[in-house]
């Protein structure tokens, strides 16, 4: 009975008992979720347009952040470094398209997946070779990102919102909105959507698939850079961050591999779910359950909706 | 199986009773009833989108009808899983060849024997003794089919490399390996040239005569259908509009209007 109480009653008693903590937990979950969603967004962009399950998305995030910080450390002014990094991400997209995607066009998904796996090795090696393996401080201030916290007294307690987290949420929203506008209202964006729906159709519109790949990978690179800056600001910039990127995977299961809203909503559900789980139920198992909780949340969802959050019910055609 | 064996040629093997099927709001089949008699060749025809393939899918359990019943070999059912259909002796081929592309012709046909093979896991580990004996026994059976379908030369060729016509033949072989009581053929001659169609027709007739297999087939080529089948069901927009011998169907005004009148 005791255990049942601990599982089903106690956490809610706690929530009610310290609503400020609940709000704080939700906020942390929200911020974590936003960042997961951003990584997932990178995956989705690439998967949608080129069918590639980009395992290297996590490393791209680290690589982007590392390039930014590394350039700064080498004496490049912060905003110039940011511009240069964007350039590097473009070059990377171009290189990947030329040297990986193009030779492997029309290969089965798993082969492309594996190629991106090889890509992670290349990026890890390259990143460490150029910038060294030491963890680096994110140049938060130099990029005019806010520091400190806003403490709000509420619900009989204190809810502390880190400005950087607020910035992260804002930037994430701007990026998502920007992408939405990009997809809806620009020629290239529409082309991208056409590619996602039907490669043939896209070709007939007169858009080169190769160009689209470059654009998509570049866009994913930009998203990775943004994510890298945010995560870097929360801890530091090192290759250990790569593992965090795996968190985007349950988000993908939940949201679907091709759905941008899915990635965002999935990210938030996972982020909030795992923070609540860890915070209120984690102590039952001695904490640290965050490492797998997200996957179980995603799996549980999947059992009820195999098509994911925003996927349509699949009728198997024979 | 014994149920199906007990039925004599000419008696009803399968009856479809007032079956309706809908996907979401789209009605694929509406209140269709017909029967298939043992040892006959039964054709299901109709214009594209008439619900023919859906009908086959209902018969072998891929789709579950929203309404109506299906009786096979005396047993009536509302829901059945595809592998249950397989155990009961219903085999089929697909409109778009659904072979196991990574396997050879022989392995594909051997896969059709899966249900008949039952040596335990332990012997499978060793692939000796009873397991090997069983493999050999079924290999012999499959070789008969290979011989029957004249595909000796491609026995060990991966099916992915075969031309389309041969793939269809291998698929027929795989279905035959199940020793089906009822064989469902979904457009067995689609995309074939004249010669291949003649071959396939010959095989279908031979299967029917040689093994006494009951066959239900969907086919677009009217000439072939009229020649091959004993009786024909005509569907249009998911409804049955005619049912009878080729001659009767040919003479049916509704069929002429709906189907034969349109160039196909």
């Amino acid at each position: 009975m005791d255990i049942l109480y601990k599982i089903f009653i106690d956490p809610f008693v706690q929530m009610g008992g310290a609503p400020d903590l609940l709000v704080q937990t939700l906020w942390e979950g929200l911020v974590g979720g936003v960042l997961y969603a951003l990584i997932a967004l990178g995956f989705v962009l690439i998967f949608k347009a080129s069918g590639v399950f980009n395992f290297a998305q996590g490393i791209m995030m680290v690589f982007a952040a590392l390039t930014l910080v590394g350039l700064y450390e080498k004496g490049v002014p912060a905003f110039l470094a940011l511009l240069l990094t964007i350039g590097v991400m473009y070059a990377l997209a171009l290189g990947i398209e030329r040297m990986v995607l193009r030779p492997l066009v029309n290969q089965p998904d798993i082969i492309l997946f594996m190629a991106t796996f090889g890509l992670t090795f290349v990026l890890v090696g390259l990143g460490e070779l150029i910038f060294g393996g030491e963890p680096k401080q994110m140049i938060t201030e130099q990029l005019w990102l806010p520091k400190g916290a806003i403490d709000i007294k509420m619900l009989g307690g204190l809810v502390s919102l880190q400005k950087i987290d607020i910035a992260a949420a804002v930037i994430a929203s701007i990026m998502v909105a920007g992408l939405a506008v990009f997809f809806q209202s620009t020629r290239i964006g529409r082309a991208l959507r056409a590619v996602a729906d039907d490669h043939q159709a896209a070709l007939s519109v007169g858009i080169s698939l190769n160009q689209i790949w470059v654009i998509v990978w570049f866009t994913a690179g930009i998203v990775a850079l943004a994510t890298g800056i945010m995560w870097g600001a929360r801890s530091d910039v090192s290759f250990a961050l790569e593992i965090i990127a795996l968190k985007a995977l349950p988000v993908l299961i939940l949201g679907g591999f091709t759905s941008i809203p899915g990635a965002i909503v999935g990210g938030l559900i996972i982020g909030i779910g795992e923070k609540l789980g860890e915070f209120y139920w984690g102590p039952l198992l001695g904490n640290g359950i965050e490492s797998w909780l997200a996957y179980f949340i995603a799996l549980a969802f999947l059992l009820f909706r195999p098509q994911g959050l925003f996927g349509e019910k699949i009728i198997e055609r024979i | 199986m014994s149920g199906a064996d007990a039925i004599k040629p000419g008696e009803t093997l399968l009856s479809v009773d007032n079956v309706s099927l809908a996907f979401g709001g789209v009605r694929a089949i509406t209140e269709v009833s017909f029967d298939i008699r043992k040892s006959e060749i039964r054709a299901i025809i109709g214009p594209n989108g008439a619900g023919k393939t859906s009908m086959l899918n209902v018969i072998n359990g891929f789709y579950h009808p929203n309404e109506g019943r299906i009786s096979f070999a005396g047993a009536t059912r509302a829901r059945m899983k595809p592998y249950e259909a397989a155990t009961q002796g219903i085999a089929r081929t697909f409109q778009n060849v659904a072979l196991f592309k990574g396997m050879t012709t022989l392995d594909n046909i051997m896969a059709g024997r899966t249900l008949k093979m039952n040596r335990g896991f332990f012997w499978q580990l060793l692939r000796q003794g009873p397991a090997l004996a069983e493999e050999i026994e079924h290999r012999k059976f499959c070789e008969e089919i290979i011989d029957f379908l004249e595909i000796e030369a491609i026995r060990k060729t991966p099916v992915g490399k075969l031309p389309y016509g041969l793939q269809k033949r291998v698929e027929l072989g795989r279905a035959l390996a199940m020793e089906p009581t009822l064989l469902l053929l979904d457009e067995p001659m689609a995309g074939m040239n004249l010669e291949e169609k003649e071959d396939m027709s010959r095989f279908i007739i031979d299967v029917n005569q040689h093994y006494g297999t009951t066959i239900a087939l969907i086919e677009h080529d009217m000439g072939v259908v009229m020649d091959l089948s004993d009786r024909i069901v005509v569907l249009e927009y998911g409804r049955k509009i005619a049912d009878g011998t080729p001659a009767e169907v040919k003479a049916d005004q509704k069929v002429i209007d709906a189907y034969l009148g349109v160039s196909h």
Partner: protein
Amino acid sequence: MSTTTGQPELDTFPKLYARNAAQRPERPAIRRKDRGIWQTWSWAQSWEIVRALAHAFAGLGVGRGDKVAIVGSNRPAMYWAIAAAQTLRAVPVPVYADAVADEMAYVLENADVKIAVVQDQEQVDKILSMADRLPLLTHVVYDEERGLEDYDRARLSPVAALIAQGREALAKDPEAGRRIDASVAAGRGDDASIILYTSGTTGRSKGVVMSAGGSVAAASDTVAFDHLNDRDEVLAYLPLAWVGDHYLNYAQAIVAGFCMACPESPDTAQQDLREIGPTFYFAPPRVFESLLTRVMIRMEDAGALKKKMFHHYIAVAKQWGEKILDGESVPLGARLSYRLGEWLVYGPLKNTLGFTRIRTAYTAGEAIGAELFSFYRSLGINLKQLYGQTEAFLYVTCQKDGEVRSDAVGPAAPNVSIRLTEDGEVQFRSPGRFVEYYKDADKTRETLTEDGFVKTGDAGFFDKDGQLRIIDRAKDVGKLKSGAMFAPKYIENKLKFFPNIKEAVAFGDARDFATVMLNIDLASVGAWAERNNVSYASYQELAGHPRVYEMIEEHVDEVNRSLAAEPMMAAAQIARFLILHKELDADDGELTRTQKVRRGFIAERYAPLVTALYDGSNNADIRTEVTFEDGRKGAIAANVRIVDMKRQASQEKAA
């Protein structure tokens, strides 16, 4: 001198069969690729089946002297049926399975066939369609059930059922077994063993009757000559009704006790050959030729390095291979180089061709090009030539190991005597000599001399090594108007040695000069065309292509040079030639079933072309009827170009 003379009781095939079953019961007698594997029957099993079948045949009324037609491809059941008939002292009559109904009807009618053992529905249908012409035919036995389910069974039985039935009867009734044994024992050397119908280059086929004793004796001689034993294996892929198959596979197998393997189907014969890897092999030159053509074509597509290696070692083989094969002394370096070549090229090549295990191989039937012949020999294949005839039960001459040449066919086979008449015709007397032409005493008298020699109808001479050289059919050797000798086949063969030329038909008898009609080889020229960017849509278009003409002209020119080098032939150099717009085809009667050209028929059929060849025109129109595979008839029309050749001066002096 035959090995069986000491044992008079072993003078028929059934007796030998029984001996094999007793002496080597476990050794394989016959195999067939069927249901994916080589189904094998040992001599004991095989003999048991033959006896059962014989019993069943007897039940169908087959008795001594009755004729049993055998129609089908090489399959154990067919061979068993032959043996079963012989067991009953009946006479098997194998018939070409691809014969059209009319041809077949003639043979069956002529042979007074009582029952027919056929392969499948196709043959059953054929025979049923001519049933009214065959009043004597009482029963048809078939091997394959397929498609025959609904046929009236009164006069139709499956061979398997007969065997089962016979087996059961033999098991039940010891008396039945004794009857069979008695029939075997009663068999005598002068029983008719088989009737083989010759395809005949002209006219209707004749039934060549062989005696049991003679057949056994002949086979025993060659078995001893080539040291064949019961470890040998052959692939029975030649037409069952042809003497070659009956002799080389059936007769020799029974005498030597070796195993004969039947291919799965004619389409897979090449693959089956590769699997079985026969130790004794026979093929007509055209088979070797097309194999070589295919080898060369496939090598064309190989990488440069591999190609270079291939040609290098082929050159090495050309230089040393035959010497090594003949046991001559060869420098160590060459030997090593050859050894390397064996590992890199010859071994794998023989392996892909299925020749790895060959101990003895023969070719015969027509002349074989020196290049072609030595190509195979240089790889280490003991390829030899023989000269033979149906009337001789195959062997007349054959070459001894180590004394092999391409331009001659060897000395007389063991126990064969040969003489040449004054006008050069070759005549022989041999143990296997035929008894008579069935029901054709006139023809028999025409062919068989008083003293028991057979007139071969071939012209030839013995060269200085004592090997026979065949020039042509004696009656075909003609004279140009100038009186110079014109041997059409000799010219044709020279032309056909070029891979690009598939067939050649030479004219010139009683004419001013020699001319030829040619068929290009589609595979070879097609490949050449592809390499040289010559596009074409049909055989006809390719055959008429100016560049093809150019190429063929070079070949003809080369032949002329070589003819000029031979005093007897120099006058018959080719003055004009044309390339035919269609392939000569047995279905159109242009070739015999053994793929020999029927010159007279062709001259008639293509009369306008022949006229044009001699009236100096540069081209001619021709329209010919053709028979398609499904039996439909059609016609092709074409305008064929004719090319004038420069003739060489006779080089007698220079040479």
